């Protein structure tokens, strides 16, 4: 979801994605950088993203640029809305519980 969201903002290659996610989360989410790649492959396989080889403008290296597909955007929106609802639900459960626990 995070990857898809990042890619919706702008297509990027793997390293840039990691950078982006780390920055956006203020380094709160520290994951193994490599674990990005199996995830990317899964997204590729389910055709939520597509990839193309291009030469990076900043480093002049040949990199694989990932781009979100229409199906990817659709999937992301669906996921986000269900995630929001879940979050809402969690808050509604936890909210009153806290109040009773700490009067």
């Amino acid at each position, binding site marked *: 979801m995070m990857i898809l969201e990042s890619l919706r903002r702008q297509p990027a290659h*793997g390293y840039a994605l990691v950078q982006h996610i780390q920055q956006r989360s203020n380094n709160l989410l520290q994951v*193994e*950088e*490599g674990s990005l*790649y199996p995830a990317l*492959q899964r997204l590729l396989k389910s055709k939520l993203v597509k990839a193309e080889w291009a030469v990076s403008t900043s*480093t002049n*290296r040949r*990199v694989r640029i990932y781009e979100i597909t229409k199906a990817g955007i659709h999937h992301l929106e669906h996921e986000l809305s269900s995630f929001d609802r879940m979050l809402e639900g969690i808050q509604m459960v936890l909210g009153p519980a806290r109040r009773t626990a700490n009067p």
Partner: protein
Amino acid sequence: MSWFDRVFRRGQLEGELSEELRVHIEERTEQLMRLENLSREEARQAALRAFGNVTLLQQKSREVWQWFWLESILADLKFIFRRLRKAPGFSLTVLLTLAIGIGANAAVFTVVNSVLFKPLPYPDSDRIVSLSLNAPGAAGLANFQKGLPLSASMYFAFSENNRTFQSLGIWSMNKANLTGLAQPEQVNVALITDGVLETFGVPPLAGRELSVADHAPNGPKNVMLSYGYWQRRFGGDRSVVGRTIIIDSRARTIVGIMPRGFRVVDHDFDVMAPFAFERNKQPLAGFGFQGIGRLKPGVTIQQANADIARTIPIWMDSFSNGPGSDSHWYVKWRITPDLHLLKQEIVGNVGNVLWVVMGTIGIVLLIACVNVANLMLVRAEARQVELSVRAALGAGRGRIAREMIFESVVLGLIGGVFGTAIAALGLRFLVSIGPANLPRLQEISLDRGSILFTLALSVASSLFFGSIPAWKYSRSNATVSRGTTRTSGATRERNRSRNILVVAQVAMALVLLVCAVLMIRTFQQLRMVEPGFTDPADLQTVRIAIPESFLSDSRMVVRLENNVVDKLAAIPGVTSVGFAQTGPMEGDGHGWNLIYVEGKTYAGDPPIRFYNYISPGYLHALGARLIAGRDFTWQGAYNLRPELIVSENLAREEWGSAGAAIGKRLRETPRETPGEPWYEVVGVVQDVHYDGVGEAAPAVVYWPALIHSPWMGTYTPRSSVFTLRSNRAGTQAFLNEVQQAVWSANADLPVASPRTMQEIYSKSLARTSFTLVLLGIAASMALALGIIGIYGVISYAVSRRTREIGIRLALGAQKSELRWMFVRSALALTGIGIVIGLGAAAGVARLMGALLFGVSPFDPVSFAAVPLILAAAAALASFLPAHRAADINPVDALKGE
């Protein structure tokens, strides 16, 4: 990316992945160098730390794309093919063994399936029954006739009065002369009554079926053609429907054509014509027709039997053999219906032979599998080090076992493919040689069922021979690697399974060999039977029919036949000629009746005797010896002189000896009948095996070619088999001369079924020789496989024990002792196998009893000779490697240490 790309373009995928990861790490390294002022080396370390396990992640990324099962199976396959290519000798041996084993089984299964299991090619064929009758009271009848055929009056009585049949009818096969087309020719005619076609239920291909009107006496003279004859004679021209052909000098109109593959029960025919019986003129007698019927749905055979039993008295009430005769005379015959399914009737006892063959071929496959298992064991043993290394590196037990079984299945399936090809070839060969007595031969084909069977068989046998090494070696992981190749002696554990396999092989080979030897002995016994004719290869037989419509006067018929005999005798190289109504082993029924001996009184009826009508010179041409008295003469025949010749067994039975029979008198009725003379025995002839050498020779009464009886008037058979003795018999040139000679007597006479007596004789031995050949092949395969098995085990033992032998030799063991040591172990295994095999063989031989002739199933010769052969073979097979063992140089043997 399609799955195809995924599987086969994996290289590219992996390249892209690793490049991507490399770029990532480099970028991170550079960033770390820039931001934190680290050296390249330190930065790279840090970058790698942050990244995680590169290899693992790469594999995980890859696995996203993998269809795991398929991939690992493909990997296994690749590996297996590589290994098989590297051991061409092994692969070839295994594949050949399997292909032959599976192919033979597929072929025999196809035959069994087509003959025994497939329904007959008629709709709802499980309701079609053959109307057979038993008549235990008709003394002697069972000697040469299977059951009692139906008479025309029975057909009317049954079809009018039954309550259980949807339709029923009678039929018989006949020969007729067809003229009016190019050359006169003799055709096979299926004569049928109304109800026969309805019973078969097969619609015609073109035109219409014979209608009720066609079956009426004096009805239109219509016929139908078979598909084969229509193709052969008219090139499949549909406009022949409506055309007129001349059959036995009568014009007949073709009204329809039956479809391809349609046969009348088990007979091919050319033309199908109605009997057109006149109901009111039918006597009780005239038992010469086959009956078939279609049961009403839901009716059982028992109910139908009861129904027919009820109509038999009605039959005797409604018909008569003529004024003054007792129509209930047949009560004494105790006629009872014995209906059975038509398929049962057609298949007959061939099931016996087929099951024996199927069983033996199955055993051969088992032996082949055992041999392959043995080879696989050897290979697995050679791979022990590799396997234990793999096990140590973490390959699961299941994974190794899977690979081994997988290898077997691959071998099995390839073997199965080749086997199918072998089966297809074998079946084509089988159909082309067409063994007699194998019914439904035309229906045999390699169909889906047989292909499925072959597939299942391939997989089953590969699982069998694959699971033995797989079970053994995947299990022994823990114990393996310590020994490596330095094992000094063969451990018991390791050899036990191979020894068991050899014992099993020997036992199975023994069973097959015993069966084969029993068949050989049967064949010998049959060959030793004097058939009643000599030098069958020099005897040419042709059948000539002179129908009523062609020449009505019997005396003229005999004159014409006499003329033909004279013309035939004038052909260069012909030493003698004659003709008879029935030739030996022709497979058709024969005429028969009661015969009364002068001066004897009978409690019931006298036994029924086989009748044959012969010309002067026939017995001489055949080579049947006259034991006493003389042959008939033409003069006697034309003068209707009341003379008879009897077979030797008849003479012995009635008067004690051949000589005593001369001058004795016989006749067909018990009381004096006006116009019926006593017939005097003028000759006694050697017994002739008319029903095949495997059957007892019937007691025969030979009548002259022309006789006069009060019932039939002057009578001669209308169809005779002419027999010529010449050393040119069987050649086409000779046959042409025969044809010319016959035509020079009368240009409208066709010559039919030219055969040499040798062909007829061989055909009568066909069942035995067919079984013999198949068993022989199976047994020799089993013997060869058994020898290879023993050889393999012993030579493997020798190679494993090289070091031990070296030590023994160094310590002063004698070479002969060493040799004996190995031969002895082989003989011990063989001995156990023989003991087990003898027990099994006794059981199998009992099942074979019906196929044997003149040999007991427990024939001591067979049961003594075969173990000796096997023991000798085993000794020989083990001697070669044992010899090699004894020649080992102790220095060489121990050098490896």
